[in-house]
């Protein structure tokens, strides 16, 4: 079925992302939708980090003093994947801030955050 057992993490991450997409699309509570989108970023972050890992005696992507660069390049894990994740975590926080502010204001106006009950506008 799988070429290596090493692909099992991918499957788990895929399930996690699918649950989040489902919740963001079909759950009625706005707060739940926001949590789902936030967790979806986490799932993709895991995907990046798993892809950037190196098996064996690997070290973090910080060069120890005195180590030869070519030796470092052959044992350290991928810094590019780490970079993407740092960026995405910050962006995820900005999303959460924006949506929280909007959800609080929605509650102030409508007294509820259930999309089923907010029906001023009809798409």
């Amino acid at each position, binding site marked *: 079925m799988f070429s290596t057992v090493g692909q099992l993490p991918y499957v788990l991450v895929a399930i996690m992302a699918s649950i989040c997409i489902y919740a*963001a699309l079909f759950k009625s509570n706005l707060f739940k939708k926001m949590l789902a989108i936030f967790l979806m970023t986490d799932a993709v972050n895991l*995907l990046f980090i798993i892809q950037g890992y190196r098996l064996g005696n690997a070290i973090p992507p910080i060069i120890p003093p005195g180590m030869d660069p070519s030796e470092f390049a052959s044992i350290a894990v991928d810094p590019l*994947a780490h970079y*993407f994740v740092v960026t995405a975590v910050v962006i995820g926080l900005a999303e959460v801030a*924006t*949506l929280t502010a909007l959800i609080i204001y*929605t509650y102030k*106006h*409508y007294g509820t955050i259930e999309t089923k009950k907010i029906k001023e*506008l009809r798409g």
Partner: protein
Amino acid sequence: MNPLLFQAPILAMLLCLLGSFLCVLLGMIMGRRAVELLSGAMTATTVLLSSLALINVYLLEGPYVYYMGGWPPPVGIPYVIDRFSVPLSLVVSVIFFATMVYSVRYLEKDRDVKWYYSLRFLMQAGMYGLLFTGDMFHIFVMLELMGLSAILLVPFRKEVKAAVEAGIKYGIYDILAISIYYLSTAMIFGMFGSMTIAEISAKLGGYVSPFSGGMFADPSALPVIVALVVWSFAIGAAIVPQHFWLPDAHSMAPSSISAILSGLLVQVNIAVLARILYDGFAAGSHPGGAVGLQLLVILGVASSLVGASFMLVQSDIKRLIAYSTITNLGFIAIGLGVGTSLGVSAAYLHIVNHAFVKASLFMIAGVFIHATGSREIGALRGISKALPGTSLLYTIGTLAAIGFPPLSMFWSKLLLLLSVLSAGGAYQYLVLPMVVSIVFESIAQIRLLAVIYSGEKREVNCHPSLPVILSIGIMISIIVVTGLMPGLLLEFGHLAADDLVNVSGYVDLVLKSFNYPAP
């Protein structure tokens, strides 16, 4: 190359960056006049810089790549300044300038405008970045920048109940779309080991990069990635069946923002999708990428039909214009999806023309709503006698929107129909749904015109001031002038489509123009 011409597009972007926080600073220590003066001056400068870039790319040096931070493509982020991106960036600058002039008077009654101007600058920077960039992950960051600032500008009048509702609806779906796009970038990283758009298509053709090697996974999984990308951009560009946020968001935002959202934001989304599909996934030659084009055609037909038929039953003027946007985006998607050079150039021209037309229609609708105090179409009865000048401008805009010759959108709609007919195969039957939606759209728009010109002279709350009329006048005159010069227009579209569809030219420009040996 002259350094000013070389740096011009990037300078425009950096000016927007400076403007975003200088507006807040001036708003805190000096007040709103200073904010308006600063953002007016800065937006005017971006128009100047974008025109310099246009002159440079078309007449002097031709397309080039700007290496951000000095790093060549797979290592750093390339900005591709070519004939596809530069004209669109000029359109962005011009519309932002016109809405800037418009909003000084339009927002007179609103308190605290510093965040408004600040977020506008960030949205503009995001659009430049999306148009120029040649890096998949940079697109994610820029989508986030453009999307979040647009989400916040929709409920700018936060005491209006429905505006907040439209904002949260738009916010949830847009951010979900961007998260899905983020998932697809992770899969691209796994498969190609590089985020540069040009490297993706080169590797699909068997290229092995000195920096990032070849491919690391079987390309049979490519259609899944393509479908994820198309899904996320279909939400962002409001293509059916993910269109339901658009009429709410575009009708509840302040009219100066509706003009930008409807005129630019969705079009930028679809332009970036075209860039990714054609130059990234090699949609013209690779079967995996071609899936994206077929999806675009199917969704585009559904979009144009749904948008046009919902136009017939609207009673709110801004909602009617918003549904017209959905229809026209369907046309653009069809043009891009057909895949011929003619189709792409027609879609490109439609993007440009539709941007000007839709922005001016929303700006005039804002004037009408201020004058009558109501958004209902019925309340517009007799407005042509009270505001004859504005009504004349609105008439020209509407005629352009339904494709009345010789106004600009006539040419692009004609080209779209011709491209579908000449594509052959099953595609030529698409002409039928397209004609049906054009007819539906025309009926709805002409009915609105009839309401405006019927009835007795009526009282209005206020007359539009000179800057408002001036900014609308700029847009309408652009529509008329470009319509009168179809030859020039066609030339632009042809060159842009050339730069987009010719994948090997794009790959050579991005990857091979840097001739310094790899370490």
